[in-house]
């Protein structure tokens, strides 16, 4: 069975890990899993997420608790604590354009060595990156991101681990489900196998290692 108790998570987490966490400004973030990591105080984590959410919501709580050594995100503007720690050099922040971040996570999950994107050409995003010219046009080579652990949220799961994400909670969740060694899904509801519409399942059960029943 993939269903585990949140208190058994320690078997899968340790200090210094690279973790991906789903969610966009906290929407679609597995809050119970995040809360558990805050409670247990894991530290020096490298966080890959769309943003650092708000101080009291989503992965923002990990920032406030000073558990993040490095954040790879597209936006930190809604969490002043991220900016403060970055300026004070208490935390490293790597800003990635959101579309490139999505593709980098996807690359990590789908076995590609990178993608060529026009996004960021002529900006500071080019710095330290390889620029490739194809047919006279310049592209930035964005390389894959892969994590030790992905923490994702899905509204509904079947007992086998197929996941359906409601509305705008999808965001990075289905991408991260492909791109980590271990994938743990916090799920809102669990239904019998065969109940979900097989055309609405964005994450097939073969990608999900464990599930925790969320609120």
């Amino acid at each position, binding site marked *: 069975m993939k269903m585990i108790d949140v208190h058994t998570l320690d078997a899968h987490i340790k200090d210094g890990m690279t973790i991906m966490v789903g969610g966009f400004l906290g929407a679609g973030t597995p809050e119970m899993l995040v809360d558990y990591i805050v409670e247990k105080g894991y530290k020096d984590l490298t966080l890959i997420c769309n943003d650092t*959410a708000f101080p009291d919501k989503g992965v923002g709580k990990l920032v406030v608790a000073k558990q993040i050594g490095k954040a790879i995100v597209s936006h930190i503007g809604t969490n002043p604590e991220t*900016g403060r720690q970055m300026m004070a050099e208490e935390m490293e*922040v790597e*800003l990635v354009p959101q*579309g490139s971040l999505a593709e980098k996570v996807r690359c990590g999950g789908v076995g590609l060595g990178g993608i060529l*994107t026009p996004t960021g050409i*002529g900006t500071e995003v080019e710095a330290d990156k390889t620029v490739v010219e194809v047919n006279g046009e310049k592209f930035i080579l964005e390389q894959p991101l892969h994590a030790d652990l992905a923490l994702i949220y899905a509204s509904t799961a079947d007992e086998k681990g197929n996941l359906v994400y409601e509305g*705008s909670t*999808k965001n990075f969740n289905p991408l991260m489900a492909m791109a980590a060694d271990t994938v743990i899904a916090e799920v809102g509801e669990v239904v019998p196998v065969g109940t979900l519409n097989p055309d609405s399942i964005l994450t097939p059960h073969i990608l999900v290692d464990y599930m925790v029943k969320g609120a």
Partner: protein
Amino acid sequence: MNAKEIIANRIAKEVEDGSVVNLGIGLPTMVANYIPDDMDVTLHSENGFIGLDKVATGDEINPNITNAGGQPVTVKSSAVFFDSAMSFALIRGGHIDITVLGALEVDQKGNLANYMVPGKMVPGMGGAMDLVTGAKKVIVAMMHTAKGTPKILKECTLPLTGKQVVDLIITELAVFKVVADGLLLQEIHESTTVENVLELTGADVIVSDTLATFA
């Protein structure tokens, strides 16, 4: 109308029936209020859907349906939800007709700076770099000056969000089109004069032969 309402109202006139539009957070979001109800316009929300309607209140609130600012919103009956890779597939792939964004600085080459002030404020680019790269038409929506200091320049001083990407600049005082030799002043607000606009603009401006006014 106040200055921001004037800007939003004027930008709405750029939106054509059947178009797909992405509105940035803040002032650009206000544009939606001025699009006629009988016009078929599809709003794209970078966090993962098309068919954005309006901010949700009361019973309408569904925590699984939020906009790119994290606020609960309602959606049209034709709405479609997708993950972040698909959201930026639409953006980067040229499937968005218009993107409206704010600016810290914009220049006569069409360069845009809106994601950081080094050492001071680093919110991050979020989806902006992809939007200015991929959208068919990029409109900058902003107050003409920062408390009197020009934001429309010969050349941006801040790190760029995009290089040579802006098509139109619309402020409470003027409408500029980015052309080869500088900025073409196409319209001025009825309350101002060309002299006043030129004084508050730090770029090379060409006054259109067919200069019009807007309300």
